[in-house]
């Protein structure tokens, strides 16, 4: 009953830790596969790559995803949980459909080591070999900076909520429990970080909640950058017009240290005591990328070839999503676009062909300024063969103003990206 491919796969992974998708995987396993691609991380980038590898190879490539979490929780729209518009459960999904529809093999486990010489990925409960590896672990928080915020216990008091989940819920509960007249302090790390407009959208969402329920409260944004890094004019206008006197923005204010017990932050210029504190930590490429030595020595992100997303440091290893050093916004849309370019290239390479020499893709990022109105930044990015990087084409830009119409389109964006990634 068991064919060779399946037995090989099971040899290295304990039966309990995997759930095989039925139909396609079993049908295809009769043919010798073109090869095995292991994908680390079932987030926006990794899940998309897995799906399109299966689609474009017509099931010819065996794809195994290793993901630590049992559920997918979307960061996009998670600021709306803070505003009270959405619940975290609206943003939580299972992996069953995408596995079943596309015959993706799935291991729920944590990657603990990667040996790129023997092409082996090690997990808590077994190991897997690969022909090609895709590393898509999202971001990691740099623990050499603000070490006082690293422990799970401290993060109960001062959640980052920069990976959507219970920390998002915790932050919302702290806002609900705060007295009217209280101060919410949040900080933005130096770019590049995950989701350039995300922190400013968060400031809007908290202000929107305060305006309706705690009108005497304040939002203080401490930005390590010299100015708002995305949709600057639009956010400044939204704060001034929708939340006059409520949102205070302080550029060039990097958080240097935090007194955890009193929720007091120190910057070069001042000390500020918060009632609710949200420090968004400085970021770098995810841990699995560190394990495979994919980061640049002087820059904590991964350099890749933008035609294939193969690492410039280690052959047969590809990096996609937030971990990539690209100069592009670290967004879910870019993560999925990179995933598809990478998947398309791997399918071609495994068939002895060549990747597209001039990839082009789009990015659209919506931000909600209150409970209904959103605004966008949108660009097309095109490969520049001379510079060997993706560059924004002319013609991109931001909304003239936030609107309810764009709020509706933002929801459409979410439903479609969730459907594309997860079904």
């Amino acid at each position, binding site marked *: 009953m068991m064919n060779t491919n399946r037995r090989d796969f099971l040899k290295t992974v304990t039966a309990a830790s995997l759930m095989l998708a039925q139909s396609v995987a079993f049908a295809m396993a009769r043919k010798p596969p073109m090869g095995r691609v292991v994908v680390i991380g079932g987030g926006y980038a990794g899940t998309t790559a897995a799906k*399109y590898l299966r689609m*474009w190879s017509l099931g010819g490539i065996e794809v195994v995803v290793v993901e630590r*979490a*049992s*559920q997918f*929780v979307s960061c996009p729209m998670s600021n709306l949980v803070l505003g009270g518009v959405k619940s*975290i*459960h609206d*943003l*939580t*999904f*299972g992996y069953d*459909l995408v596995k079943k529809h596309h015959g993706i093999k799935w291991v729920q486990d944590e990657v603990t080591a990667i040996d790129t010489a023997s092409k082996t990925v090690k997990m808590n409960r077994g190991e897997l070999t690969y022909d090609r590896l895709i590393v898509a672990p999202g971001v990691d928080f740099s623990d050499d900076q603000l070490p006082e915020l690293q422990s799970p216990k401290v993060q109960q008091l001062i959640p980052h909520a920069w990976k959507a*989940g*219970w920390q998002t819920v915790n932050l919302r509960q702290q806002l609900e429990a705060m007295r009217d007249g209280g101060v919410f302090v949040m900080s933005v790390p130096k770019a590049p970080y995950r989701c350039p407009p995300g922190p400013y959208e968060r400031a809007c969402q908290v202000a929107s909640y305060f305006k309706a329920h705690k009108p005497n409260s304040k939002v203080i944004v401490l930005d390590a950058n010299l100015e708002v890094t995305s949709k600057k004019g639009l956010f400044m206008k939204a704060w001034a017009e929708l939340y006059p006197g409520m949102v205070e923005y302080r550029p060039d204010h990097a958080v240097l240290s935090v007194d955890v017990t009193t929720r007091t932050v120190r910057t070069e210029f001042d000390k500020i005591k918060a009632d609710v504190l949200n420090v968004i930590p400085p970021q770098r490429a995810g841990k699995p990328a560190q394990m495979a030595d994919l980061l640049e020595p002087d820059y904590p992100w991964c350099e890749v070839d933008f035609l294939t997303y193969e690492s410039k440091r280690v052959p047969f290893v590809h990096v996609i999503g937030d971990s990539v050093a690209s100069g592009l916004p670290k967004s*879910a*849309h870019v993560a*999925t*676009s990179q995933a*598809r*370019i990478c998947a*398309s290239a791997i399918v*071609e390479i495994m068939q002895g*062909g*060549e990747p*597209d*020499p*001039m*990839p*082009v*893709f*789009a990015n*659209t990022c919506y931000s909600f300024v209150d409970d209904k109105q959103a605004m*966008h930044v*949108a*660009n*097309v*990015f095109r490969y520049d063969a001379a510079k060997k990087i993706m560059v*924004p*084409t*002319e*013609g*991109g*830009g931001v*909304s003239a103003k936030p*609107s309810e*119409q*764009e709020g*509706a*389109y933002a929801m*459409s*964006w979410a*439903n*479609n*990206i*969730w*459907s*594309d990634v*997860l*079904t």
Partner: protein
Amino acid sequence: MKASILIFALISSLVWSVVGHATEDFIFSERDTLHIRTLAASCAVCHGTLGNAVGENKPMETVSLAGQDPNLIVGRLMDYRAGKRTSTVMHHHAKGLTVDEINLLAQHFAQQKVVKRYPPQSQVLKEGSR
């Protein structure tokens, strides 16, 4: 490689004037198809996998592109590109595309099967997960 790009550019700029002809009029090289399949797939975050968006194509929802008349798609994108038709976001995308890409995208989406797509079901976030 260079030659094939050149040929692609030549052919598609000729075809530009005869949009609406069957795809057999296009001489796709494997590489041109690769270029369009990933570019078209980048539209999926709003317009759905292979151009089938979730929802009912109501106003204020993104529309499905699968099975659409290619002339309609080209016409809209060219109008957004020229600033002749207003949009919330599409002019920012259309202006970044070449005329060749617009034509090939329209052909690509026109050929896709119309399928009903749904967003995934949301779930209760489990206790204890991060």
